[in-house]
């Protein structure tokens, strides 16, 4: 028997919005410690990792590990039926081929339940090895979304250059070039509005805009985003999911000689 009750149901809705652009279907791995989802996007260029800790749920029960393959388009349709302040419960039997979503209004006046057919997805479990990153940039998530959106008008890829002075995002294309520089915020009043750079060495990497723009769909989850970079390893874009977990996107840097 699996059961997870999340008071802040809107978080789950936002998580789904953050991944459904990239994935058509995915397996949710449910274990004692919590729920995990890890999958590569259809084109196998980026990887998404969602982690929801058991402690973050109001009620969490998982008798034995199980995997639930879900069609994310269908799941998103179901979650659209939940109001933002609803409490969401996910329930499944140990060897079931369906999962049940229960939406309770805060006043308990309205309870709706939806059952969805599961998919049998046979896929490998993937992971990214732990890495020490040469620089970690924290910035307001809205700002990052805006930068990616603006620069994607110029070219297909964005260069992120991180140095002691700050971080520079730039793009070049047919119509011209665009550069956005963010300096480290000197005085920190509100942490989530600040630009904070932790750096061992300067790093400059290039990434495809279309993926960054898909990652920024997670912006509503958290006011702050962190970008971790090291030469020749994938960029990590991380948003926290309230206080119950986080979502990470991995994207391999573009190498110059590769597809022009």
């Amino acid at each position, binding site marked *: 028997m699996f059961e997870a009750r999340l008071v802040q149901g809107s978080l789950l809705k936002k998580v789904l919005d953050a991944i459904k652009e990239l994935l058509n279907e995915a397996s949710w791995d449910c274990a004692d410690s919590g729920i995990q989802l890890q999958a590569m996007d259809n*084109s*196998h*260029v980026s990887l998404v990792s969602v982690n929801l800790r058991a402690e973050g749920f109001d009620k969490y029960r998982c008798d034995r590990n199980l995997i639930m393959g879900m069609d994310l388009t269908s799941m998103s349709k179901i979650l659209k039926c939940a109001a933002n302040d609803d409490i969401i419960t996910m329930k499944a039997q140990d060897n079931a081929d369906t999962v049940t979503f229960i939406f309770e209004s805060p006043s308990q006046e309205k309870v709706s339940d939806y059952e969805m057919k599961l*998919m049998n997805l*046979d*896929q*490998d479990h993937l992971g*990214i090895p732990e890495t020490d990153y040469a620089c970690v940039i924290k910035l307001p998530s809205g700002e990052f979304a805006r930068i990616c959106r603006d620069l994607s008008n110029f070219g297909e890829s964005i260069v992120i250059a991180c140095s002691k002075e700050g971080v520079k995002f730039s793009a070049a294309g047919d119509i011209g070039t665009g550069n956005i520089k963010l300096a480290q915020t000197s005085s920190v009043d509100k942490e989530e509005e600040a630009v904070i750079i932790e750096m061992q060495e300067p790093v400059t990497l290039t990434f495809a805009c279309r993926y960054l723009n898909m990652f920024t769909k997670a912006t509503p989850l958290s006011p702050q985003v962190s970008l971790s970079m090291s030469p020749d390893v994938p960029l990590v874009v991380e948003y926290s999911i309230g206080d119950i977990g986080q979502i990470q996107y*991995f994207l391999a*840097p573009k190498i110059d000689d590769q597809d022009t």
Partner: protein
Amino acid sequence: MDKRAAPTNAQNSGAKKHRGDDDDDEMDFEDGFLDDVDFEEEVNGQDSEDIQGVDFVDDSKTDQCWARPACVQLNPQEDSFVFQQIEIDHYIGNPIEGMPGQQAGKVPVMRMFGINDAGNSVCCHVHGFSPYFYVTCPPTFNESHLGEFKTTLNRVLLDDMRSNKENITDAVLSVDLTKKESILGYHANRKVSFLKITVALPRLIAAAKRLLGEGKVYMTDIGTPIYEAFESNIDFEIRFMVDTHLVGCCWVELPAKTWSIRKEKLDTRCQFEVDVAWNKFVVHEPEGDWARLAPFRIFSFDIECAGRKGVFPEPDKDPVIQIGNMVICQGETEPFLRTIFTLKQCAPIIGAKVNSYNNEKDMLEAWAKFLREVDPDIITGYNINNFDFPYLLNRANHLKSQQFPFLGRCKSIRSVIKDSVLQSRQMGRRENKSINTEGRCQFDLLMVLVRDYKLRSYTLNAVSYHFLQEQKEDVHHSIISDLQNGNPQSRRRLAVYCLKDALLPLRLLDKLMCIINYIEMARVTGVPLSYLLTRGQQIKVMSQLLRKAVEQDLVLPVHRGSGSDEFEGATVIEPRKGYYNVPIATLDFSSLYPSIMMAHNLCYTTLLTGPQMAQDYGLSADEYIKTPSGNYFVKASKRKGLLPEILESLLAARKKAKNDLKKETDPLRMKVLDGRQLALKISANSVYGFTGAQAGKLPCLDISQSVTAFGRTMIAFTKEQVEERYTLENGYKHKAEVIYGDTDSVMVKFGVTTVAEAMELGKEAAIYVTEKFVKPIKLEFEKVYFPYLLINKKRYAGLYFTRADKHDKMDCKGIETVRRDNSPIVANLINTCLQKILIERNPLGAVDYAKQTISDLLCNRVDISQLVITKELTRAEKEYTAKQAHVELANKMKKRDPGTAPKLGDRVPYVIIAGAKGTPAYEKAEDPIYVLENSLPIDYEYYLTNQLSKPLLRIFEPILGDKAESQLLKGDHTRSRIITHSKVGAMAKFITKKASCVGCKVPIDSASEALCKHCKLRESDIYMHQMTALGALEEKFSRLWTQCQRCQGSIHEEVICTSRDCPIFYMRKKVQIELVDQDKILERFGAPAW
């Protein structure tokens, strides 16, 4: 390339300069040809003697069996000489005494190559035939002007010539006044005066025509009228054949005393070389005994080159290492000669003679000598025109071989490569190389197949699988070098492969009866055999038209290319779609278009411009007709049309051939007759096309649009008649309904329930309706479909009955089973479903089968060869307006490896792989082998929605109705998928695979464990399960491997075949990968403890 290539190029560009504004190909060819001769004579003085001397002595010692049978001594005074000609050309040579025609200067001489019954090769020089054409005669022109006209034209012509290598003084041989009639339009059968102008050389025709047309010929009494030319655009060979009643590949007899035999100074390598006057020989119509075929030698060869890795072989760098040869006699089943020429020593091969050489130049020269010695009449092979021949010639050129490039029968003519372009409606634009081999007809199988068959792939492997159901080992050219550099055994392996490639074209030619069918086509249409492959459709109709026109003193105007006026095509009756579980009778018009032309006397010669013209000729209203498209033609009572006459004789000949076929017992002669009736049918149908081809030699839209208009009204009329007659009121049990009609057929639902009843009514209706049409239009009852699935216009399927008791076959039209722009999975699935629906009459079984296939697709259980789509790369990238998958992929592959990348004209195989959302399909195309090797994920969604869904829904909608989509495409069977992860790509190298439980897929911490703690309880169960899976894979792999070993013909050597057309290859690759993975899974269970 060195000096050898230079003259060729210079000569080509020179030829181009000669081109007038209205020149024709003939002139062009002529120039090139002359230059060739000149050039050869210089270089060749010592060569030809040298070669000949060596040749005959050498070979008579080694292999007697290569040569042709010895020839019998003949006396021209007493014996007649009979042979079958297969190739006709002409050259410019010296006149021979005692022959008709021009006696001074150079004259054109026709040359017929052929074979006599004993199998001796023959070259017959035909003298005295001069080229001519007609021009209109100005009204004031009479006999007295002929002399002046001739001298003036002669002077103007000589002035116009840029060079006069032949020292021609009399360019115009004669001018005659003749009474002829233009073929175009009705002229009340009145003949008018035409000038027949005979010139010295064929190429002068175009010049003379131009000068006369431009008003360059001034005469004192007449001035400079514009002379309109007739029949000036006819190939010289065709002209000759028409005037002497020769048809392609017919038997020719030279009666005693008319011919002479050459004993010395032979021009050619033929055993007999004879001279005859053009009006003295006898042509035997290919009827009765004269329909037989002489024992032609058909020579098939294939070369192998040692390419470098990643580069397609280039003749100036990569050597030719092997040449495999097969020679067969027409009419025999097995080649009598199998030889292989190899570079470096090669182990012996049973049944074949191996000739090894240490020097490549020696090998090439020995091969050329061998070819000359075998003296084949027909040379075949696969893609020899565009690959093997040019490669050999370029290579020999590179090695500076003087003796190699004499592959034709003329001793003094060097074989050179030229580029030729063939533009035709039927085939599109094709660029080809052409190599001259005088007297030997080149019959490239690839060109035949591309012309006559629509296939998914034209590789020899795919073709042999398609027609012979045999796979063939395909050694990639990058491996060839390794085999060559190995030992005699590895070279033997290559040699076996090479010999097989030389044998397959012969077997295919035999199986498809190409040669016999083409010979019959040449006989029926009266053009030389080689024209059938190198020229378009029109020349065939043109030749027939000319033959008939000559009989009636008609002349053909020269058509100037004009814009394209579209006209309405055939009609279709709106289909009443559905699944009919009752018999549907089909009524067909037999030979619809030819019979319309015959019935209504539609022809060039009967065309009236309008009712006004009819009045001018004093025709009464019942002497001409108005066609449904508003054109006017006179009736046969006033003038019998030429085209109807041609068609009548073609159809009569076909009837006769079919009757003879029934009586014939000899299998070879049956083949000939069958080929004949087929050729006659095709010819009859192509007459209509000829009148409609705007870019053609003599298009006439009035005819073609009248024909289609008649067709349309006839279909509508038939529907009306059938539905009017077969009603309840007229005493029939059911009301008949025409559910569909196309160009020449209507489908009728009579409402009866058995096939026999439907047949009865069908026959009756056909007779009833036929009575209402003008003869010879005939509506025939042909077949009954039961059940019948009518999907849309030109899309239907049904079980085909011609007898009441048993169906003949399943007939599908326009359904994905026969199209080639989709993947095999579609064709196979649709085909099986149709079989289940129509033959087994089990629509639900078909639904289940479709679901199962979709489920297999989503779970990666479908073989990748089923998913391969192929498209031909027809144009360079820039010429495609929109981006296309196969073009993009060809570019991608070129970057990876320029050697194996597809080239222009190749069919590119690809599969669609998964991409990010919104990625256009053209970016997702990938090479199937690359996909297999890197286990790239396939875009199953694409195959489901873009390939399978529409065809599937089309056939199931008539059965399942609206539920079809949800049942088939969204059911439970779509909810199980297997997702693979690519081994290449930006992320692949960073990701580590986490271990998961073999039993329930839950991630577990250590990779050394196989199972999670929940599944541990069932360990033995799961282990056994995995063992069984491993065993199954192992068995599958062994079977595939054995299959491939059998195909390569050796069971103790590694399989190296990489044939992209072979489904077994893909399966073998896939199983190989799966087997490795499965093995790893079992390792995780640890070593078995006993």
